[in-house]
């Protein structure tokens, strides 16, 4: 029963993919979307049952579907591992996924390719579930590539925009660069452990040399950096916002991009052996958190701001992994899924209401027109900014506190700056969108409307989760979640030493203060004195334009990697096209020259010989006349005969000298 439930979790959406994909054009949209969200809902139900069973028994179980690759010393099963970490990921993926599927019914209503959309979304669910449920690296990798492919197809969904197709390709190729690192890590794991099963690998992880553990850890990190959009491979995520908003919420905020975090937490046994790899993870995370936040300060596209905030929040999770706060990383992953999905979907509601407008400069004053959306977006903002006692406060505070308590003061400072920036740009976004006077264009203002219940419903649930979603992790380092995940992430890095309550409270106060400071600044700049921000921008044009242009990273990548590769390809292509022609032409010319030479030879030598012989035998031998019959094959025969004689002469001469040589020896 348990096994069946586990297998059903990914199989249910897979069935929906097959049915919708193959028969979708035969029936109405109503059937298609019911299959879409229905299957995910059922698999959410299965996930809850599996979770409850795991909770009550406390067992870690493996479910083998079939032996996939075997032979020699290699055995890889298509199998699932059910442990607390899997349970948390499964619940987040199917739960948030279900809400977003329901929301999509309203959001995508009337769009072309409605059935196709649900097919891709369900295929994504299947891949993501394989990713988090697999019991070995290769099943993880199937899911890993699968989510990449679905992300590709969904980013390019609005293909009438040229930018969408470009963004899709960019996302996939950048991801594949990360995947290359991941694949190398898989091979290194196999060479060292002779297996790819998590349980066996992690049981032996202690025997790894530090150097090998570091190598594996760094290669895994390359994969994680690609998938989770961290420095230096983050560039695809903001562009990925070309996809429909539910896609941005599901794939590019709540689930797929967190795969890197999941993967690092899953492999913590290897990272625990490699302090250097850990430090790198923490640095990558910390730097990304601040770097992306600074770009987010000045963007005007509502979804792009959210995208940079996603990159930045993922940075926090990496930072948490890097300092050994694995539970905190998963905790933040979970709360982030709630409030970021909420923010994206509310933003989608705004975009929907404004007939597709995404530029915050053409919004403003929407609070009265979209009261539900406003309230929910505000909850999301409060949560992400880390205002007590919303979900984001607990998880973010835990990361900050962990960094401080374990004396990573530099990282703490970076994270604190990031938290300030986050609060600032999120409230900036809220003020620009919902407050002040309306800058909505007339045609959009004409049919401005609050979204239908099918969209608001899931938002309300996510809003509630964003408020209470932090409580499983309270009190910090000792909440229910910590006990639940404890067996998986081990005690390593959880400190163990008793932290004084006073310090905990002080750190919480500091975190809240930082968040309020950001809020206050945003309030001043965008509500009290709306002209100040522009003045500041004008006073520091260099800084402003650098941020506006995202530090020119895309341009640099283009100039350094993309263009040279293309140019190299074009140059080689030219070479291939022309060299081969030259060779063929050369051979032709050679043949021509050769034939000219042989014609000359024929004309003057052979004919000469023939003519002379002919003359000589003119009277004597009548039969020789046939030689002048003018038929080509006769001439050919003579040439062959001549060659024959010539070769024999040479041979005789050579053998003679050869014989002399032998004799001399």
């Amino acid at each position, binding site marked *: 029963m348990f096994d069946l439930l586990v297998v059903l979790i990914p199989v249910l959406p897979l069935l929906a993919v097959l049915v919708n994909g193959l028969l979708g054009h035969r029936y109405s949209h109503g059937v298609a979307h019911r299959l879409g969200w229905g299957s995910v809902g059922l698999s959410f139900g299965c996930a809850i049952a599996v979770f409850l069973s795991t909770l009550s028994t406390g067992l870690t179980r493996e479910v083998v579907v079939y*032996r996939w*690759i075997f*032979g020699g010393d290699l055995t890889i099963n298509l199998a699932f591992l059910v442990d607390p970490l899997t349970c948390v990921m499964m619940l987040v993926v199917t739960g948030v996924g279900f809400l977003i599927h329901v929301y999509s019914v309203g959001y995508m209503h009337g769009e072309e390719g409605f059935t196709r959309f649900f097919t891709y979304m369900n295929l994504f669910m299947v891949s993501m579930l394989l990713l988090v449920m697999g019991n070995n690296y290769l099943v993880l990798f199937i899911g890993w*590539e699968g989510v990449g492919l679905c992300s590709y197809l969904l980013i390019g969904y609005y*293909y009438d925009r040229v930018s969408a197709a470009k963004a899709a390709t960019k996302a996939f190729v950048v991801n594949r660069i990360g995947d290359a690192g991941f694949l*190398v890590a898989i091979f290194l794991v196999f060479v060292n452990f002779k297996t790819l099963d998590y349980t066996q690998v992690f049981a032996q992880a202690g025997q790894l040399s530090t150097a090998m553990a570091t190598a594996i850890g760094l290669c895994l990190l390359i994969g994680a950096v690609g998938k989770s959009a961290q420095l230096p491979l983050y560039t695809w995520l903001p562009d990925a916002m070309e996809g429909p908003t539910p896609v941005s919420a599901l794939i590019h905020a709540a689930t797929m991009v967190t795969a890197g975090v999941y993967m690092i937490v899953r492999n913590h046994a290897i990272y625990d052996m490699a302090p250097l790899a850990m430090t790198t993870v923490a640095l990558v995370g910390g730097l990304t958190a601040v770097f992306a936040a600074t770009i987010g300060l000045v963007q005007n596209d509502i979804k792009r701001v959210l995208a940079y905030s996603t990159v930045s929040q993922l940075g926090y999770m990496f930072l948490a992994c890097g300092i050994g706060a694995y539970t905190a990383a998963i905790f933040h992953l979970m709360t982030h899924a709630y409030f970021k999905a909420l923010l994206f979907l509310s933003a989608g509601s705004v975009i929907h209401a404004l007939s597709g407008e995404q530029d915050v400069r053409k919004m403003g004053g929407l609070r009265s027109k979209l009261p539900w959306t406003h309230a929910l977006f505000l909850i999301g903002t409060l949560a992400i900014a880390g205002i007590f006692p919303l979900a984001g406060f607990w998880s973010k505070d835990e990361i900050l506190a962990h960094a401080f308590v374990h004396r990573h003061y530099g990282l703490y400072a970076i994270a604190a700056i990031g938290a300030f920036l986050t609060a600032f740009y999120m409230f900036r976004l809220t003020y620009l969108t919902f407050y002040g006077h309306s800058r909505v264009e007339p045609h959009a203002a004409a049919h401005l409307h609050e979204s239908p219940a099918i969209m608001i419903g899931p938002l309300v649930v996510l809003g509630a989760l964003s408020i209470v979603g932090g409580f499983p992790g309270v009190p910090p380092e000792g909440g229910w979640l910590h006990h639940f995940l404890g067996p998986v992430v081990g005690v390593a890095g959880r400190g163990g030493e008793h932290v004084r309550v006073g310090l905990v409270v002080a750190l919480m106060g500091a975190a809240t203060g930082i968040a309020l400071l950001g809020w206050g600044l945003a309030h001043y700049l965008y509500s009290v004195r709306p002209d100040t921000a522009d003045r500041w921008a004008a006073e520091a044009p260099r800084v402003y334009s650098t941020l506006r242009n995202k530090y020119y990273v895309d341009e640099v990548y283009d100039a350094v990697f993309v263009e040279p590769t*293309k140019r190299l*390809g074009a140059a*080689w292509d030219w070479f291939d*096209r022309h060299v081969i022609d030259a060779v063929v032409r050369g051979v032709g010319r050679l043949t021509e020259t050769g034939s000219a030479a042989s014609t000359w030879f024929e004309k003057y030598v052979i004919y000469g010989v023939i003519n002379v012989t002919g003359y000589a035998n003119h009277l004597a031998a009548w039969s020789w006349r046939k030689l002048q019959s003018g038929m080509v094959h006769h001439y050919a025969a003579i040439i062959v005969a001549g060659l024959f004689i010539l070769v024999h002469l040479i041979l005789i001469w050579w053998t003679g000298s050869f014989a002399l040589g032998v004799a001399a020896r």
Partner: protein
Amino acid sequence: MTLPLSDIFAVLPELIVVTAACLVLALDPLTPSARKSWLAWLSLAALVACFWISASQMGVTVLAFSGLVILDPYAGFWKLLLYVVTGLTILLSLAYLKEERINLGEYYGFILLSLSGMMIMVSAADLLTIYLGIELMSMSLYVLAGFKRFEERSLEASAKYFVLGSFSSGILLYGISLLFGVAGSTRLQPIAAAVAIRGFDDPQLLIAMILLVVGFGFKVSVVPFHMWTPDVYEGAPTSVTAFMAVASKAASFGALLRVFLEGLGGLKANWYVLFLIVSVATLILGNVVAIVQTNIKRMLAYSSIAHAGYALIGMVVAGQTEAGSAVRSLGVSSVMLYLAVYAFMTLGAFTVVALLRKGGLEGEEIEDFTGLAKRQPLAALLMLVFMASLAGIPPTAGFIGKFYVFLAAVKAGLAWLAVVAVLFAAVSAYYYLRVVMVMYMRDPEPAEGPLPRLATSPALTVVLASTLGGVVLLGLFPNALVWVTSFAVLILK
């Protein structure tokens, strides 16, 4: 002198194929032009018979014709693969020749003759026999490449292929003659013995080895001997291109492995380096140049070059002197596995290309795939699967092929080579996905004329279903194939 029956038994499939080829050629003038497909069915019947015979011969090892020909599981593996590929090519051609209005009976005769050459190549134990096989294969392919007689491009391809193919054959022959000079025989066994005596630093042996590398390098189209490939693949009729890209490459790899491992195994320290350089160059060039192609046949040509680079990695592993014989065997079987997988996905992709019609013409620019997903979602889905497999995305067969090759490399201590290959596999996603992009993410301009569509027919359905089945099933259940390759692998000394 009478031939022992066991000799006849060893070459029975070859005899059947050659007989069928002659029969097709003889019957061609007698067949009314509307009934040319009968010749295709005749050819297919011969292939089925051969498949059955070769399959039943799989456990046997016989040295026939006083050591000219060997029948062993290794040869059997390649033959079985070649029958499948040829059978699918014939089915594909049934539809394609009709569309192109070159429905001539001798086509099937030449395909079979070419196949017989390939079969001789993979089961020859003598360099001259291999040479004979290569020539038989190539001569037929030269004719087939120029089969669209009224099209200049096709003739040009044929001429180029002929000139360069002869050139490479000449080089190969020169290498063979040098080896004969050393060993006093063209059989692989005496050559191996002579190599063992002469040692690996004998200049004449080295020159001969280099010449063989060059000659075979041409046949499997690896850098820098690849240049004929794009031009010929582009110009030849697409069904022939598919046949060349898949069958002739497989047969050439089959012969290459046997010659270098059995005949020149003693020189592996030397050819290991050569193949290493060649495979890296091939990976880089094939993948990078494919990026800028706009013609899908040219793109697939560079892709086939790149795939030869991946397969060569297995060859490099097989020549890695420091690796144990189990790892080296894995290298050999990974090449076999790779080419089997490659056969299905490449044939599938070429089938879609061949039958993609744009107003009666072949749609062979990548742009011609624009909007296919809307017009024919199933065809687009198939192409998506083939492209994903070529890019090596799991759980398709393409991933399994790459996985084994890279695994062999890592096990042999060539992790860096695997890294290079993995990186360029990442690059390859770019050009494979471009096809997907134009199919799924672009609508055709209304003014652009007729929309692309696939010229469907029952034979085509069989080809597409088989190739799709191969790509998906070999990805999900690779074990049968893995088992066969490890069973049929060359025994390394």
